[in-house]
């Protein structure tokens, strides 16, 4: 929520999805025509969920339409695994919101 608010304060339009399943996330990203999908996970299930979201996006042929960011309690050892899956960047505990804003601004619509 802090991230959502920080992004909104930086002038971005944010849709906070709450606790959604994989299909809901992909559907709302497509129907709202967003630029960025941000996944926040603290349970340890980040690899499984991210993979499912990306696979579903690929299945629908829209993976490249979105910049995918992942944040939460994520061991640094998994950062590379997530990036290899197709995640643009990963944010662990202690992230400052302006770094996320900067990354989005620099990497969007390239």
């Amino acid at each position, binding site marked *: *929520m*802090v991230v*959502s*608010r*920080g992004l*909104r304060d930086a002038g971005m339009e*944010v849709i*906070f999805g*709450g*606790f959604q*399943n994989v299909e809901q996330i992909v559907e709302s990203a497509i129907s709202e025509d967003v630029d960025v999908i941000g996944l926040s996970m*603290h*349970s*340890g*299930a980040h690899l*499984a*969920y991210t993979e*499912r979201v990306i696979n579903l996006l690929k299945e629908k042929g829209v993976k490249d339409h979105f910049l995918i960011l992942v944040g939460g*309690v994520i*061991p*640094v*050892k*998994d950062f590379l695994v997530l990036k290899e899956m197709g995640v643009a960047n990963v944010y*662990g*505990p*202690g992230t*400052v*919101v*302006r770094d996320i804003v900067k990354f989005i601004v620099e990497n969007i619509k390239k």
Partner: protein
Amino acid sequence: MFDENYLKKIKERKQEWDKKLENTKERDIKFITDSGIPIKNLYTPLDVKSNYLENLGFPGNTPYTRGVYPNMYRGRLWTMRLFSGHGTPEETNKRWKFLYSHGETGFSAAVDALTFNGIDPTNPDGDAEVGTSGVPLYCIDSMFALTEGLPIDKVSVALIVEPFTSAPVCAMYYNMAKMRGLDIKTLMGTTQNDILTMTVGYVPYKNVNPYHILRLACDLIEWCVPQKNVPRWHPINFTGYNYREGGIDAIQELGFVFASACSHIDNLIERGWKVDDFVNRLAFHLSAHKDFFEEIAKYRAARRIWYKLIKDRYEAKNPRSMEFRFHVQTAGSSLTAQSPNVNIVRTTIQALEAALGGVQSLHTNSYDEAICLPSKEAVLLALRTQQVIQDETRVPNTIDPLAGSYFIEWLTDELEERVWSYIDKIEKVGNIAKALDTGWLYKEMRDAFMRRQNRIEKGEEIVLGVNKFPVPYDQTTTVFRTNKEAVKIEQERIINLRKRRDNAKLETLFDKLRKVCEKEENVMPIMMEITKEGATVGEICDVYREVWGIWEPPIAI
């Protein structure tokens, strides 16, 4: 507390001393507590408003500021209770046995996200979460596996589930205990059963609205305590800890738990019970955060506030009704994934706050918790941290050792006053369910998140390794991974159960449950019947959803 003439003398000397400071310079920071209370350079008898007998008194006597038991740790040390659960009930049972063999004195089940949200592992919505953040407890078989070979008749067990699933999970546990030949009238333990944890502490997934959640919480209290089915159980633990983790301060933490407690008491009074029939079994779960003295003062103030609340507002007659008993967890949000070894130091200091504050039961975090679920090595160190305080420091030698400190007494008074004002502010919005449903509590949470995040980003709140002496994420800590096979194991457990049970009989029982929900009767009696026959938590929560509908929380960003 002091003689008037003597105070005058102190005042004169203090003025002389103040002059001495005129030519000195202070560091350029704000001297405030974590909750923003301005702190003076020095406290003297001039700052102590409290009258000893009225405001402090003796431990075990009103107003309980110095502790709820007359002998405190000289009689019995606090329970060392490490919140733990992962993978499957069998694996969690192994972890519990490991901790017990190393001196743990209480158990606490951390459940997974599916058990919190009433979803079975066979549901594709959440199957990837099975066993990741806690132990999956979906059916009575899970309870047997969880407690196999453990002396649950002697050691108390905390079931950390919230009102949306507390009725079925507790019923499963009580049925298991009965089948093991135990008398549930003597069973000891706690259910968290906290309305705010799954609403403002986490984001709920397909739960029902807070008015029903409040009623479900009160159903468990009513059935256990005034109806005397499990009278030694703590059927609720108002969990300020979880929302404190979201960024609120110590004043808001107490404000939230007391406003919530009042809403539950009011509900039970509406059901015809007297406050003395049940209030003694209500318990609390607070945080031990970063501000050392403020946290200690918070525990002391909390005891006094609760005493006044129960005595004055609810006119309880039994002094035991006015005792504030609490569990503490050290602050997970203070831990860093950078230099995780520093977390051992943070946790030690926070555990000491709890010990000096008169805690009844304590969880210490493992140093790897900003990275993963605790490894065996990390959790053992967390347990040893408490044992060092209990066995090596001699801290438990005397009761409430910081009492009489000018600063601590002043801060206890100051916090008490501020908490009363905050309780008023919440109650102007309505009861706790209304404060949730209108979104007011979500806005309070959001504003608190933002304030804390801004302070950290500006460097006003120091986080070593992050905004001061920053270091990269630690790469050397072994990452503990939960069992990937858990989902298969749990799905098989449920499938086997569904084959074994009398499904026709269950259908009748589900109809009965539906009627109980429609009529808004206490769900516990039917829950005892239906879970004994093998109903799962997901199936039961689906009935709640069907009858009451799904609630969309008014989350503010």
